[in-house]
């Protein structure tokens, strides 16, 4: 009997030791805009290696996440594709005001899978294609930016019948990637590291800056993993990853 007791105690100690490493590791659910999928995964991996905290990522349309968060979806952080939704969440009392910052600035690109298709602005003017893919402008900022660009070039009315909308920027990209649309407005980040094809980086003066803001949700204000993750996003290490994936950085959001 004594040996049984000893064995149980030893087993218990072993279990405690093995799980002890994670005894203080928290976790947080983060809603991530579809366009930020790859950098988010890498940064979450780095974060976990550094702190042991688990970041559970969900990817999708910012509009959809906003709606879900209003209905008490269990997200601690929203990494939005715009700055509208985080602002709204703060003004509606759901987001922590001081936590909101711009984690990335998105770059719009006109892209085709075919290396000869996109030459620049003139490709749009020439209008020699069947379908142009964009993200839904009401739900995705890259879609709105695409429409802004077309309007700034005075081409929206002529091209509009040829537009097909993807629900998210990922889907807009998919339409072009599968060749169903000859070209489309996608996020530069989706073309990293080397997507091939042909592209035109849309000049910033043609569309409103796509500031992608992060915000901590009030319900998770005490979640250590969440606050630590937001702080991590401002570190040079994380910012280097963000830049690597084709985003511009807001100088005011660094540490």
């Amino acid at each position, binding site marked *: 009997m004594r040996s049984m007791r000893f064995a149980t105690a030893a087993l218990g100690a072993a279990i405690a030791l093995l799980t002890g490493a994670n005894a203080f590791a928290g976790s947080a659910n983060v809603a991530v805009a579809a366009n930020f999928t790859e950098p988010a995964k890498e940064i979450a991996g780095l974060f976990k290696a550094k702190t042991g905290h688990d970041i559970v990522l969900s990817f999708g349309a910012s509009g959809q996440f906003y709606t879900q968060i209003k209905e008490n979806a269990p997200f601690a952080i929203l990494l939005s594709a715009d700055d509208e939704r985080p602002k709204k969440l703060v003004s509606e009392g759901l987001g922590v005001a001081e936590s909101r910052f711009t984690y990335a600035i998105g770059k719009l690109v006109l892209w085709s899978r075919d290396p000869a298709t996109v030459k620049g602005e003139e490709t749009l003017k020439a209008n020699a294609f069947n379908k142009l893919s964009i993200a839904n402008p*009401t739900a995705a900022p890259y879609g709105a930016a695409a429409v802004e660009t077309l309007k700034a070039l005075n081409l929206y009315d002529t091209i509009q019948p040829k537009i097909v909308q993807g629900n998210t920027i990922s889907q807009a990209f998919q339409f072009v990637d599968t060749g169903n649309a*000859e070209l489309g407005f996608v996020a530069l980040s989706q073309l990293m590291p080397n997507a091939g094809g042909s592209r035109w980086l849309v000049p910033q003066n043609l569309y409103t800056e796509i500031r992608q803001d992060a915000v901590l949700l009030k319900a998770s204000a005490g979640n250590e993993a969440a606050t630590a993750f937001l702080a991590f996003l401002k570190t040079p290490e994380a910012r280097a990853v963000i830049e690597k994936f084709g985003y511009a950085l807001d100088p005011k959001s660094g540490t």
Partner: protein
Amino acid sequence: MNLHVSADIWQPIRLTLELAALTTVILMVVGTPIAWWLARSRAWWKEAVAALVAIPLVLPPTVLGFYLLVALGPSGPGGALASLWGARTLAFTFPGLVIGSVLFSMPFVVQPIRNAFEAMGDRPMEAAATLRASPWRAFWTIAVPLASPGFLTGAILGFAHTVGEFGVVLMIGGNIPGKTKVLSVAIYDYVETSQWAEASVLALGMVVFSFCVILTMMLIEKKMTKSAS
């Protein structure tokens, strides 16, 4: 309540009804021979075919939609077909939606018809044969009337299922007003932009419509089963 349900709300409604009607008709024509074969064949691989037909029942619509996107595109058969009239792809078109709907709703039409044929058994067709009726004539004068409740169920289910279709349309439609922006996607758009009142109006309309359709089906089917037995 300030509704902005403009006049062009009828466009997705009409589009949805057209899609559902066309899909149902096609499925009745295509699905009946399949159901007949499944009911009466003795091939050892017949249940494998049945399982293949039933796959859309368990596949997430987005998975089916994704493969359809590739198949309808320039690298798939859809693109090859479309090039006959100078187009690059069948995605983003109404015909493309019809193809997607037919594949997606097929099990809902084939299964009830197959069940009805099986319930009929061999005797009626055998009796017709002894009376020197050709198989073709026997099919139309004996099998179809006896299996009519199954036809009706299949038609109603196929129609209703296509009206409610969302995932597949989202993947291959491209949200083009008048061509691929069906009712479910229109409602989704309203929800995305937080236009709850408009979304509710449409959604409620769909619920009422579906309820009436299914209620009618149940009443007619009851009547048909009575007269068929």
